[in-house]
């Protein structure tokens, strides 16, 4: 035997052909099999949490909406709910219902977007084009309600700024009818298409125990049989009076993640219809003080990708003292690093797409995985500062 071979390392990113967002991966491979995976994030770290501290409570809303363009509404909702809790006010019922309605429409747009991107990873561009074409339906609805296709700014502190009239409600119902029919087709593809099954069935299997140990959230967890959904566990906004059925699958493989998301679309259609039928009458906003009383608040909402967590701290002034955001992709990333080991390199893009990663959501902090040396590197504050200055000059 010769000396042990150096593992072959494949760096991917930050600019890469498949995902549209920058992230850097390094895979060690033995032949075609991945033996080690590591990840480097932070290319989209913009310093939003710090930036929000320099803005007033109202201005911070628009900054936080731009944490992520795909799920901007849930970020704003989480923030508004937190601030309202701090200020001791509650948005009127109609505003709560509209919040949930827009959030569910956003879930449709996000899931269809994901379906397309994931199909593209599998080399199934037909499905990509189809699902994105259908997604335009819901983009139209969102634009009709709020006036913008992305970053809709539907929320205000203490309410919402857009109303739903009869015409809009009819348009939404018509859109949903069309989408429901199409979703039936997608479910059929996901369940039965022979080529698609070969890329998804039995790949990236995560058992229920693993899912619980890794702390994954959202559809990724639900595909492994963990019935976890903030809309049910800790209802907020209109979900307090609107029961949500959790969609779970037991298989834990990639196919299960597809099925869960597509089935969730049906549940979302049902929720939107119920919301439209039972839309309470009344005001859209309540007054909220400019200076928020001192205190701390936590707010959790269910983003399309899982649990989104906000921590807010106020010192009684008109600016936040501290805002901490934990996005769903962060816990889900850990599962990718575990699941890819032992798999074919060709499966990696699919496994990665399976968690529906969102880098711009994610880059709140940078984690350094020092895989080579096998020990933790600890730096003092001074060293860290020095390193920062040297790297960025």
């Amino acid at each position: 035997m010769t000396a042990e071979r150096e593992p072959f390392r494949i760096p991917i990113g930050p600019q890469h052909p498949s995902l549209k967002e920058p992230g850097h991966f390094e895979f060690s491979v033995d032949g075609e099999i991945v033996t080690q995976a590591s990840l480097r994030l932070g290319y989209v770290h913009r310093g939003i949490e710090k930036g929000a501290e320099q803005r007033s409570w109202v201005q911070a809303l628009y900054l936080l909406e731009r944490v992520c363009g795909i799920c901007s509404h849930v970020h704003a909702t989480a923030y508004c709910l937190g601030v309202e809790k701090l200020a001791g006010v509650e948005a009127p019922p109609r505003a709560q219902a509209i919040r949930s309605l827009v959030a569910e429409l956003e879930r449709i747009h996000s899931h269809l977007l994901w379906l397309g991107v994931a199909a593209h990873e599998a080399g199934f561009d037909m499905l990509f084009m189809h699902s994105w074409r259908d997604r335009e339906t819901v983009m139209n609805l969102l634009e009709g309600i709020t006036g913008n296709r992305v970053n809709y700014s539907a929320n205000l502190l203490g309410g919402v700024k857009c109303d739903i009239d009869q015409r809009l409600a009819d348009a939404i119902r018509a859109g949903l009818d069309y989408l429901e029919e199409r979703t039936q087709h997608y479910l059929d593809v996901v369940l039965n298409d022979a080529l698609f099954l070969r890329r998804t069935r039995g790949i990236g299997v995560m058992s229920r125990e693993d899912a619980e140990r890794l702390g994954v959230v959202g559809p990724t967890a639900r595909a492994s049989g963990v019935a976890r959904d903030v809309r049910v566990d800790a209802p907020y906004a209109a979900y307090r009076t609107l029961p949500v059925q959790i969609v779970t699958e037991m298989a834990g493989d990639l196919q299960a993640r597809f099925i869960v998301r597509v089935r969730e679309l049906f549940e979302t259609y049902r929720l939107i219809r119920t919301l439209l039928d039972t839309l309470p009458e009344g005001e859209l906003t309540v007054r909220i003080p400019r200076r928020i009383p001192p205190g701390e608040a936590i707010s959790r909402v269910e983003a399309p990708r899982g649990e989104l967590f906000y921590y807010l701290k106020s010192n009684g002034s008109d600016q936040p003292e501290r805002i901490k955001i934990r996005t769903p992709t962060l816990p889900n990333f850990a599962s990718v690093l575990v699941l890819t080991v032992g798999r074919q390199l060709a499966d990696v893009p699919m496994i990665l797409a399976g968690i529906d990663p969102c880098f711009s959501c994610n880059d709140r902090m940078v984690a350094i995985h020092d895989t080579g040396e096998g020990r933790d590197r600890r730096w003092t504050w001074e060293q860290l500062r020095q390193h920062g200055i040297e790297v960025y000059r």
Partner: protein
Amino acid sequence: MEFNKTWQDMLEQLKTWARVNSPWAIHFNSGSCNGCDIEILATLTPRYDMERFGLKLQGSPRHADVLICTGPVTRQARDRLIRIYEQMPDPKFVIAVGSCALSGGAFQGCYNILGGIDQVLPVDVYVPGCPPRPEAIIDGVVKLLEQLKAGYQPAARRSGVLRPVPVPVTDAG
């Protein structure tokens, strides 16, 4: 074509013709909220279908004529952005998409933000909006192509900065 044209000129004309008819583009997100990214993707899909102008989005900077940038430039992404730009063959064009790419947008004043794309690269087309509608992005691309037909020189050449900013050597990977 006139008779007294040199071969050089004819070759240039041929190259422009080819370039205008099928520019290849590469997309890089240097810190965007991905709102702009999904709108760029949407331009490729059936309703908007940017490919009818010959523009194709593909993976490698070495094959690209047009760099479509979204988002403000973060400190981390700056070096990568410059590296990608330098790998592209000359002549190359830069389209900045979104308010962030124009000026830093909503993220102005955040500590990790350098500002718009033009802080780092010479930009040819600016497309404003947060995010710009797919129609606006297509309009930006078409404007660039029309300008090319009229003999437009890339911003990089006009300003004489072919190497944008010296890339600091880092060991950060």
